[in-house]
């Protein structure tokens, strides 16, 4: 399918954000009619690379990039995405950018409508032209035909199945004049198996017509099926750039995750046999992290890890159980039903939650540390309050709040000037510790921690993980830890569940092969791989 003529060359692309290197010396080539599979974990640099290719303003705003991009042998530097579009590069994003109330045709021709000028244009400009719907429909039909799929050109997007939306997006890019290169970012993530098959075959059809495709996906078997060659990114570097022939899904998963990390044998407590947390058919309507149907069990005294790629729903689980987003299903803790959609009820059932959104939900940034630590305990358990007038209302017990704060400042090694310092003056790692302290102050039997090490330095990371481990070991606290960092989960958890598309793809022991985790994340092997539960 590759015609052998070079379309795109990336040479030595590097990019750093405020001293943080995200891309380092990226070079690869793409021929006409070639499909490249671009894979890598979250944060590996795929998104940044595509932003550079498209000339997104955010790149220039953060200091530009090094290296050169050549299109058709000519060096190009796009200032805006519109320049890239004009040069014949189309991009289909993971999130749909379709107007829901518009038909397929209207979306395909969005802002490129065929127009018929009239008298009013002479007065008020060409936006007064009337749409030429007949021509627009012809264009849409042609683009759909090129794509080789069945799409009703008159159907409203809001009434379409998800797959059709994806095709509409691609058809929109094809409808452009002289489109040479398509970037498809996780186009199959929302598709059913059959729909994905259709998409893959239409990708091949496009390639046959000389359109090159950069295909980003975490479904590795799709990559092996459709791509001509594969480029694996890890930590901002290209770790592999090979033709796809003979490469197995397991190989790619291992390249992606990296096989050189050895799991530390953790000092784990022994968990009891009784089930402490039981989740059945949980659904959560959390924007961007929809949980569709999740069931799992956590033993008393266990540290249970939940991993998976961003947007697959792992964050939704904790937020749903804690009542922060509309949810449904059955959740029992220690034999008691948890009333969903009611944060207060959740707190009262001896569950605490350390949110991934530290600054938004977790902390009262303008308040003192003692306030922050005692706040939830005060609200939920009415602790640290002195009743006045026979309990008619209460005042804060400053003394006990201070004692509480000092206790946690010491035990968690929070670096601060004292319990009266304001939360926003602390570093990220110390803020995270405050969040933990706040949760610990409730003396929960079950703790949900969401992304506890996100955005904090290595030293703080270690303390946070060690603290969790210690509370688990010393107090028998059951912990559900949600993290994007697989290694972290493997280093601390008894078992690790991987969430994919709002469902549990599988549960593995931390000692399982890293490639197995990679497969689960890639939407493969559900049920097939050793379920350790």
């Amino acid at each position, binding site marked *: 399918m590759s015609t052998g003529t070079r379309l795109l060359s990336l040479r030595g692309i590097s990019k750093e954000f405020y001293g943080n290197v995200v891309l380092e010396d990226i070079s690869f080539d793409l021929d006409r009619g070639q499909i490249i599979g671009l894979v890598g974990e979250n944060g590996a640099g795929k998104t940044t690379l595509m932003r550079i290719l498209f000339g997104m303003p955010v790149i220039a705003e953060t200091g530009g990039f090094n290296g050169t991009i050549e299109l058709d042998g000519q060096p190009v530097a796009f200032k805006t*995405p*519109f320049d890239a579009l004009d040069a014949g590069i189309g991009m289909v994003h993971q999130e749909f*950018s*379709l*107007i*829901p*109330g*518009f038909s397929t045709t*209207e979306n395909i021709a*969005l*802002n490129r*409508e065929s*127009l018929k000028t009239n008298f*009013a244009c002479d007065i008020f400009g*060409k*936006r*007064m*032209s*009337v*749409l030429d719907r007949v021509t627009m429909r012809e264009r849409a039909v042609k683009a759909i035909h090129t794509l080789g799929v069945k799409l009703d050109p008159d159907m409203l997007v809001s009434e379409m199945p998800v797959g059709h939306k994806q095709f509409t997006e691609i058809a929109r890019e094809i409808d452009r004049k002289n489109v040479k290169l398509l970037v498809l970012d996780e186009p199959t993530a929302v598709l059913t198996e059959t729909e994905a098959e259709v998409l893959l075959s239409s990708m091949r059809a496009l390639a046959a017509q000389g359109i090159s495709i950069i295909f980003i996906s975490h479904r590795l078997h799709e990559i092996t099926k459709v791509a001509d060659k594969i480029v694996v990114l890890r930590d901002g570097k290209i770790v592999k750039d090979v033709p796809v022939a003979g490469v197995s899904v397991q190989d790619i998963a291992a390249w992606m995750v990296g096989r050189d990390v050895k799991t530390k044998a953790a000092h784990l407590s022994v968990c009891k046999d009784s089930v402490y947390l039981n989740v*059945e*058919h*949980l*659904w959560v*309507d959390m924007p961007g992290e*929809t949980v*569709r*149907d*999740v*069931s799992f069990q956590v033993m008393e005294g266990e540290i249970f890890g939940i991993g998976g790629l961003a947007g697959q729903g792992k964050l939704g689980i904790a937020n749903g159980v804690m009542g922060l987003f*509309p949810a*449904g*299903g059955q959740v029992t803790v220690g034999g008691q039903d948890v009333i969903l959609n009611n944060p207060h009820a959740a707190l009262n059932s001896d569950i605490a939650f350390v949110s991934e959104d530290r600054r938004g939900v977790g902390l009262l940034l303008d308040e003192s540390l003692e306030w922050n630590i005692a706040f939830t305990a005060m609200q939920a358990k009415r602790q640290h309050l002195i009743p006045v007038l026979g309990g008619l209302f209460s005042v804060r017990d400053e003394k006990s709040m201070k004692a509480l704060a000092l206790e946690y400042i010491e035990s968690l090694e929070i670096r601060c000037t004292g319990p009266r310092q304001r939360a926003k003056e602390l570093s990220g790692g110390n803020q995270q510790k405050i969040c933990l302290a706040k949760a610990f102050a409730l003396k929960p039997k079950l703790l949900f921690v969401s992304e506890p090490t996100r955005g904090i330095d290595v030293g703080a990371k270690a303390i946070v993980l060690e603290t969790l481990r210690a509370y688990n070991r010393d107090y028998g606290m059951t912990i559900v830890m949600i993290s994007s960092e697989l290694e972290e989960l493997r280093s601390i958890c008894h078992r690790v569940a991987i969430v994919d598309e709002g*469902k*549990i*793809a599988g549960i593995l022991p931390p000692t399982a092969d890293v490639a197995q985790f990679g497969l689960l994340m890639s939407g493969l092997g*559900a*049920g097939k791989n050793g379920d350790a539960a």
Partner: protein
Amino acid sequence: MRNVKSFVADNIVTLIFLTITIIAIPFSGLSGSYIISNLIDRFARSSFLVFALILPIMAGMGINFAMVLGATAGQIGLIFAVDHNIMGTEGLILATLVGIPLSVGLGWFSGQVLNRARGREMVTGFILGYFMDGIYQFFGLYIMGWLIPIRTAQVMQIDGGGVRNTLALESVRGGLDKIVSLKVGPFSIPVVTFAVIAVLCLFIIWFRRTKLGQDMRAIGQEQGISHAAGINVDRTRILAIVISTVLACIGQIIYLQNLGNMFTYTSQRQAGYYAAAAILVGGATVSKASIKNVFIGVFLVHALYITTPLAGKALFKSAMVGQYMSDFINYGIIASALVLHAWKNKRAADLARAGLRMSAEAQAAAGGVA
């Protein structure tokens, strides 16, 4: 059954007011011919103003309460025409010609402000209306008579400063309605006014088919996506408001030529309010409106305005309580329409969620644990 339920839920606002009207009609004791002739009159009078709301709703800006600015421009045009003693249809044409440039300017201004108040367009528009009140009073009471001399005694305040409170529009009264007045049985139909309204309908239908109309529909649904597709969102929103403001200007002139009297400093305030009530009762929401909504809304709201005071009187045996009840209903319309709109939004979200729930439950029934 499900269809009926869904139909009721989708048209709840319209149905509620239809029910109230149907109940009020017999109690009011008014004759059908009176109600119909009054409806014709009110229809001609106020439907143009209501049309001014369609485009901003289409562009996702909610109800343009800032249309009060356009109404003000129309009134300034009328003051000009009356002060210069331009009578009849010509007076209205002149008032419109004076009002249009003013309303374009004011519309551009309010479009700018509303762009800076994204997501809070309606309340900002409301406040803009009050802000305009101040400027307008300054203009009417101070600039007029000082910078712009007042030529006609009937326009001037008794003490000589500014435009008087109640302006008799005798010279332009019926300047549109009475060009051709068709008698059909007991009813007289202002043919030209209806023709103007028909032309406006055609304009709106045509406009929706233009590139600009398509862009407004697009940004009305998804600003971010439209922006990414290269549509100049800010400019399009401003244009929507400008057109709305100009239509409000013409609408107010049509309204006042029918009424024949103008409270110089308060008439414009009601413009946005009543138009909003009408379009909401007609089944429009703050995000979706059509010509059909305007017609149904104007019809229902005015049927209500005509009948409730008398129905209230008959029910409570007191003229005063009847008046209070009609006030209560009139003012309740917007509030309840907005509340019902919020309820509908919530229902839509619940419906979407129900899909999620059903799929989870279906899985559960199948005994499948992923």
